[in-house]
């Protein structure tokens, strides 16, 4: 198996690593970097549990190869809080009880993060669309949407 040396930034830290040519970005994150907050739910780009930000855009890390991360900036759920201080999105999820089993939540929050980065005051429909690739089997989405809406209202 061909190996490649890549250099990338993850959660603000520059890393250089060897990756196999068929290795998924998700495996690099979960297995090599031990950042297990990013989840695998389907391995097919359908559930969004593996959502991370690559250069600010939400992507399914199960569909991206690790080699493609070369030169990129990656943000995972672990990179949102600063120490014990939560990101406002995380805080809002806690406040609104916008979680149950929690398995979809890191991906949800990352999709919300990408949305709010480019559109700080989205409408409810824009929020629904932004997280439409993140499946949640527990919450029925309502509280998640409320939580995201509320972040934007607080910042308004």
């Amino acid at each position, binding site marked *: 198996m061909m190996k490649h040396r890549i250099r990338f930034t993850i959660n603000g830290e520059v890393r250089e690593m060897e990756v196999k040519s068929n290795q998924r970005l998700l495996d690099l994150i979960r297995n090599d970097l031990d950042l*297990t907050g990013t989840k695998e739910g389907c391995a097919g780009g359908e559930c969004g549990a593996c959502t991370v930000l690559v250069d600010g855009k939400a992507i399914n890390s199960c569909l991206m190869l690790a080699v493609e991360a070369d030169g990129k900036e990656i943000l995972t759920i672990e990179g949102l809080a600063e120490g014990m201080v939560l990101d406002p999105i*995380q805080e809002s999820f*806690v406040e609104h009880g916008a979680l149950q*089993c*929690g398995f979809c939540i890191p991906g949800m929050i990352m999709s919300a993060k990408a949305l709010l980065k480019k559109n700080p005051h989205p409408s409810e429909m824009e929020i629904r669309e932004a997280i439409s690739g993140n499946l949640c*089997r527990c919450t*029925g989405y309502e509280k998640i949407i409320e939580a995201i809406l509320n972040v934007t209202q607080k910042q308004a």
Partner: protein
Amino acid sequence: MAGNVIGKSVVRKDALEKVTGAAKYVGDLKFSPMLHAKILRSPYAHARIVSIDTSEAKKLPGVKAVVTGEDFHQYVGLYLVDRTLYAYEKVRYIGEAVAGVAATSPEIAEEAVKLIKVEYEPLPVVLDPEEAMKPDAPLIHEKLHEYKCVPFIFPVPHTNISNHFKIRKGNVEEGFKQSDYIFEDEYYVPHMQHCPIEPHGTIAHMDQKGKITVYNSCQSPNATRKLLSAALNYPVNKIRVIAPYVGGGFGGKAGATIETLVVPLAMKTPGYYVKLIYNREEEFRDTFVRQGMKAYVKTGVTREGKIMAQELKMIWDGGAYTEYGANITRAAGYTSGGPYEIAHMKTDSYCVYTNKPVGGPFRGFGMGELHWALEQQLDQIACKLGIDPVQIRMINACRDGSINACGEKLKDIGLTKCIEKAAEMIGWDKPKEQTPGKVRGRGIACMVKGPAMPPNAGSSAVLKINEDGSANLLITATEIGQGSMTALAQIAAEELGMSVDKIEVALPDTEYTPYEWQTVASRITYSAGNAVIRAARDAKRQLKELAAVGFGVTPEEMDVANDKVFLTANPEKYYTIAELSLGLVLPNGGGVGGPIIGRGSWVPEGLGGLDPETGQGTKAVAHWTFGCQAVEIDVDVETGKIDLVNVAAVYDIGRVINPCMAEGQTQGGIVQGQGVAFHEQMVFDENGKLKNPSFVDYKLINAVEMPRMSIHFVETPLEDGPYGARGFGEHVMVPTAPAIANALYDALGIRVKSLPMTAEKVLKAIKDKNSR
């Protein structure tokens, strides 16, 4: 103010870990040395295993163990012991585990699986349960008559019927005679998948002493332990099951599924940690699935709309093994009157083996299937008789004093309040808004469910008081998202007069946390909640006794609140809970009592068996929870697509422990019910192969589709519920689909009687109606 937390939206105990990605699920755990498992699965739905050759696989470098049914064919099962750990002699569905491999990497394990050679001799495949019931049908389990089962399951020897449950109440023929009209119809529900976003996962380890430890994404650590122990003839205390956070269960992680494949591999590789995480395809096919069901309903009513008699035949597509599913057919049987009182009833509920994936518990435990039939049937009757659908439900609704299908006299029932409130919330009597290009319809459906479990299913709790006045609550309820940690902490805090922040709740570890039957049946707040109350009261009693010694009074003169144990007559005189936590310290420095540990055990009382011929008895389940949903839909007559616009859900849950969580759980249930209504079905080809094992072809509801929801709780206290609380976690998904079906009739005068109500089916029904 400490205590006083019942009915408050306390922040979830697991929130911080879950929003930061710190919460660990089984797939996130790593150990050393680790092995990875892969499973070889049957390509045939029904075949004899002629031979298995694992020699090439075993030679592959990196392979540490290969197991098959030759080594591990012990039987396992919760209610009917009909399943072997690995397929033995026969395979009975496509996907059944034939062999397992443990290797140093997932890739090697995968390669080894391909090297295993299995010779099969195909047998006739039985996919239709009605065919399977016929006397000349090929038998899927030749040894059914030899299988062990609990006393309330009734297999029919030498057939494919693994359970036949009967209700004979009153005289159904007489009831039909007293009826002015008789309605007959058929309804169908396909197989469904739970689709937790976290797939099943297990890591198993056996040490040199033979101790087996299982890290498990499961709902039932104690049941898993017991099932493994019984199957392997292994001491219970040599098996330890640890359940970290579970990424959704919905019934699919109850009992035992994946762990029965991984533990044998661990037993062959002492010292290693063997890990298996299912991929999505395995998750769809090789865990429990919701059974399909066909219902034949005959209902007799008076012209005023009172149901006089009901004859119901339910045929359940149980799949290849019905060790758990058999009890679902029983639950639907004893609930077969639904939320209504019917004087004369005849019910036959059959669990039937087919060559399909294994049927098992699914949120609702048969109630979604049952109510799909009953609630449409009643709606049809209302429409034909010209009675308002709300009115006909009010006429027939169970109330205090009603006698249910099993002859139990009901009390403390708030169903009529739920119906009235749901109708009011949806604006039943108001003119409908219209969406351009669409036709709006309104529908309503009710439901009832009780916790289906053995009569002696118990719970226990241990509460350790710490030296700073905080406490650790030990329980074996799994946190599957329902919020058990938080609700149970609230209950402990309320009883102890302690701030809820001071209570830390453990995740299950059968080595340290006390017995819990299973985290199923919407029973944790109810059953474990009662155990926690008893544990807290036990701790409180000890605190009072110690304080009483200190003050030279009797314990009855003491009270506990706000982290203090004080003299009721003079609250200024107190010990803090912290001061008493390790026992009372006397002025001379000596100690009394020692550390405080509260213990509580609980089992519902008064449950008994039902007569096998009539289904009549005292009390089939611990309690009943009723509810009602009303919906508004928009139908696009050009495409047949239905939009769910508004849902009003009202449940009588006895007492709301945490409003935010109760609401969240209801919202999730409604949306799951919406999925049932619109999309979800497992599709099999003529060989029994599942055609849609992915989220591409098996759609879940996403954030764009979900409706506007309004939710209300009626609170009719349950006599033996904690603070009156009843279980309701499953109930909230049950009436959504039939309410939508009824709304579809309201909109267009068409009925779709088989789930799901896809756009194609709706469009066809529209065309059929227009061509009539």
